[in-house]
């Protein structure tokens, strides 16, 4: 078991199995099919992401360096939250990027009863340590426990 400290972007507590992407998450490429075709598990459709392709993202603690690609990214996250197909939480090793930040803020301001805690700046060591299926627990003040 290890603990990592990051910066809280969106507050909240969560416990969920880890799903790890070592490359950037292309939000549009990953979520577009899930949002359009009623896939409540949000199966990742990004063929360029070997870590995530074909895996279910909804309800997982998604661990990643940052998001990349289309500027629909924040809007896509917002829709995923509204449809309750979002990851249990987003855990960034890097400082959060502008698209993921937008998705987090839009969900927080414009949606009711949606929770997707977001923590960034967890460091490269976090992403090197965490593996798919490990249990992630987010506590107060950006404390992330991995076991």
């Amino acid at each position, binding site marked *: 078991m290890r603990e990592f400290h990051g910066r809280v972007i969106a507050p909240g507590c969560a416990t969920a199995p880890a799903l790890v992407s070592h490359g950037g998450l292309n939000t549009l490429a990953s979520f577009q099919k899930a949002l359009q075709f009623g896939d409540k598990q949000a199966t990742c459709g990004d063929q360029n992401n070997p870590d995530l392709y074909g895996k279910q993202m909804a309800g997982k603690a998604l661990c990643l360096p940052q998001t990349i690609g289309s500027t*629909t990214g924040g809007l896509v996250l917002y829709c995923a939250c509204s449809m309750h197909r979002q990851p249990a939480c987003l855990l960034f090793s890097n400082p959060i*990027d502008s698209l993921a930040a937008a998705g987090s803020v839009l969900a927080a301001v414009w949606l009711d009863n949606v929770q997707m805690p977001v923590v960034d700046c967890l460091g490269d060591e976090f992403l090197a340590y965490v593996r798919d299926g490990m249990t992630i627990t987010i506590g107060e003040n950006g404390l992330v426990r991995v076991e």
Partner: protein
Amino acid sequence: MNLTAKQQAILDGAKGETMAKVMKTLVMYGQIFGAEKMVPVTSQYNHLVTSFGLKALGPVYDLMNQLIDAGAVSGQKFSVDPRPLDPKVPANFLQNLVFKKFMYSKQDFYEGQLRQLGLKDEEAFSCACYLDEQGNRPKKGEILSWAESSAVVYANSVLGARCNRNSGIMDLMGSIAGFVPYFGLLTDEGRKATWIIRVETTKKPEAQLLGSAIGMKVMEDVPYVMGMTKWLGTELDEAACAYLKDFGAATASNGAVGLYHIDVLTPEAKEQGTDLIVPDAKVYVIDDAELQRVKDNYPLVWKNPNAKPKLCFVGCPHLSLQQLQDWTERLEQSLKAAGRQKVCIPTVFTTAPGVKKAFESSPYGGRLAATGVILSCICPLMYMNNPLCGPMPVITCSNKLRTYTTARYYTEEEILMKITKGGNPQ
């Protein structure tokens, strides 16, 4: 964040609950990046990324309705990304049914919302809004609230405007408020290069392949690219701008680049040179072998890798007028050499409405039509974004289209050979 009295009043509800939420959204967005103030949006027009009336985007339409009902509409007129549908683009009965009755059944409704929010005009649908014929070309130093990754990177890098990689919806929020948080690519510090890219290829690198390699390597950092002068020259002429349009789109879709500098070519690199590079910048050398490695690593998701292509898309992002003219000449020459009159794979070239009008009113319009190529203003990405196109063998020279769909990437020369001769270049 230090807000002006006017901004604070909006946040406190002086202009209603919805405007307060718009301001709260912008403040929270800026606070994440340490923004200490808002700055006015100074461009004449905005540009939005969301042009498609996907049935699945119900939450977006609900939000737009809240804005419209509260009178919180854009302070600027705006252009928007291309439409997803065009009856001229080949589609079978089932595809047409899926497109119109299911996927894009909200298109007319959403375009109605866009008009209420401030759509510039009915021709304002293009990802390349900055082309002269489209009329949304910001000036150097202007502050934008744009989204659309390829347009943002072009505006920052080639035009010298200042814009963060804003998300859809956030693009509209900045324009409604008239302010955006001051951070990232709006600041001098945020525009410094943290990567040096040394291009050492033996021939002019394919724009969309070079951009892909750089995007994958630097992610959202700012690259300073050296070694391109012999290929692009030192002036931003039409050929250089078209190259950088395609290059930038690939950096932004394969990575998250919002700004690049090209040594002695792009505006800030011309003014400041290598002073733009931070002292501890990382270095990435790109030679022929590296470009080949990147291309060879693209996943091929066709069920039958040897399938005969059923459709070809050229023009993601939308083609410029000069690119259309160049393609027409290359097609004519290649078809003549092959002893053919028309392309042997159904092929769609995509361009902006203003460019299409100018092109079709010139002699080139008829010449391209004679080759059998269809000219459309569609968004090929949105066209392909459905389960019926998934198994369809589509080819493209767009790295952006490759990234988001099952389309298979080839260089422009390879595409030319395939659509005119049915084979690969010798």
